């Protein structure tokens, strides 16, 4: 009887465990890579700083990312996203380097003037491991021009995809 109860408990817990996807360092790298790939499509020469800066999240409103956008179909308006964003504890977020054993994840070829330098914030994952948000702040190397972008990603079929992009700050 006892054995049967344990078996039932284990079986009932199985789907719950499956819901929480295991996150690895590869998930973090894949997200940064997706964002860099998207930035590169704009054809500008870009520079990726090899470390994250948590301070980039300070000017982002996690509870209301819409700003002036009144569209009802934005991803952050979905219930699951609202729950995720509203429960982010920014105090627990720590910076990290975009390197593995000293080797940078992104090669910055010809680091000179006149490039957009992008700084990432750490990637923030949902508890279930199927959603993530990351912010980039940019600065043109020879002026104060730049901006901040929030990237909303979801994991589908083991792949991270950018689902929505929100530009929320323009400098100069």
């Amino acid at each position: 009887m006892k054995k049967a109860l344990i078996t039932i408990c284990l079986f009932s817990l199985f789907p719950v465990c499956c819901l929480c996807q295991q996150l690895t360092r590869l998930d973090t790298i894949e997200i940064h890579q997706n964002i860099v790939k998207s930035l590169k499509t704009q054809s500008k020469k870009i520079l990726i700083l090899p470390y994250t800066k948590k301070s980039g999240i300070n000017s982002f409103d996690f509870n209301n990312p819409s700003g002036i956008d009144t569209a009802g179909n934005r991803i952050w308006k979905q219930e699951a996203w609202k729950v995720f964003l509203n429960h982010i504890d920014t105090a627990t977020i720590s910076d990290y380097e975009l390197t593995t054993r000293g080797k940078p994840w992104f090669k910055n070829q010809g680091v000179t003037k006149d490039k957009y330098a992008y700084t990432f914030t750490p990637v923030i994952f949902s508890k279930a491991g199927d959603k993530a948000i990351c912010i980039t702040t940019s600065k043109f190397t020879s002026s104060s021009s730049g901006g901040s972008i929030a990237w909303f990603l979801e994991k589908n079929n083991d792949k991270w995809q950018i689902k929505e992009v929100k530009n929320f700050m323009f400098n100069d």
Partner: protein
Amino acid sequence: MKKHLNLIISSAVVVLAICFMQSCKKDRNETSLQGKEDLLSTAESYYKRQLRSRVSSDTNDINIRNYKPDWNNAKLSKTAEGKDLINIPLYTSASGHIELTVLKEGDNVTGVIKRLDYATSKLYLYTGSGRLRSKGEYDAAKKVFTKDNYSNKFTTMSMGGELDEVPIYGEGPGPIIIIELPTNPPPTNPGEGGGGGGNGGSSSSIIIILKNTRPCISDIKNSITLSSNLAVALEQSFMGNVDYNSVAAMISRLASSPTWNVEIKEAAIPDTVDPISGATSTTAATTRGVSGHVEITMNTGYLGTATDLSVARTMIHEFMHAYFEYGLTQTLDPAYDSFVKANNLLFKKNGSQVGDQNDAQHEQIANSYVNGIANALEIYASTHSITSPDPALTLSQYCKDLAWGGLSDTNAYSKYAPNKSRVQDNLKNEATNNSKSTKKKKC
């Protein structure tokens, strides 16, 4: 004194222009639906029936579920034959108007949706469920609609379908008269206490200066918006049409659209550090969309050193960002198509928005609006007795140099800016009010 005289003359011309246009605006012969609840309920039933239709995948059609009928402002009018027409606004802005018109004739109820884009004077006619049936030029003054190529697609109107009984007269390729639509609202400057008119409704101040912001910000903002409104009003009076994608029209719209709210404040913005060289640079201002409005923050440090002309330059630049931010969210606006066409650098080839809008918006400004910004600056300078401090440059050339401010990150700057070291010097001179600047400083 001269400045005040100029402002008074400018204001007088704007007011006269607005009065002139108001007088040309013919009222629609409409009455309230108060006490005619049966007609209103007929229209509501018709609208609900349309909601049952499937959503069209044709991008020429509109999805009526995206619009909220303004039943409180529904009006009753009559056709030439005395039939009842119930007009319900679906979407109204300074750039266009969409309304559903329901025709009741005995037990028969039909409808048409009309979408008028003021920027292009294009009128689109849809079935009540949002399927495009006809489009063409609409002359609001003559109330004449001339269809685009009278193609086979639109001959289906006479072959059955929901448009059969909608009173569109003179079937065929020639000019045809249709149900009246509101005329293009004249630009107003509600911030100056005038305003009203138009379709927007509210006449409250749209660009708000927050408390604890130095008074010169308000003066500069008022001067820029007033001259922009003036330019648009004059263009409308003399040319009969307005280029809605000009800098003056953009600022005018920003300053007069009831739903486009901008707040300007001043605060200390920390210097930015170049990640490569470690050099610091001063951020003049930031623009961001927050709940319900766009917030422009002018850097206290910059305001402490910059000339009025430099502050005006920065303000116009931030207004452009604010305009783009609003423009990008107005996907249901009748003028959205022309916004996309005029600002194609903000979009990818597949029509979606470019990821990094800061970069894209700067490219768009640098490619399309530098001359417009220079003109606005020159008008500001002229009305404030500001002259070029460089004897080798006219005021116009000097203002054009300043118009490149904040755009040095763009490809267009590399290609088109006339003399880059001079541009950067002039920008710096104005930002620091040094001896080579225009030296006019109230801030």
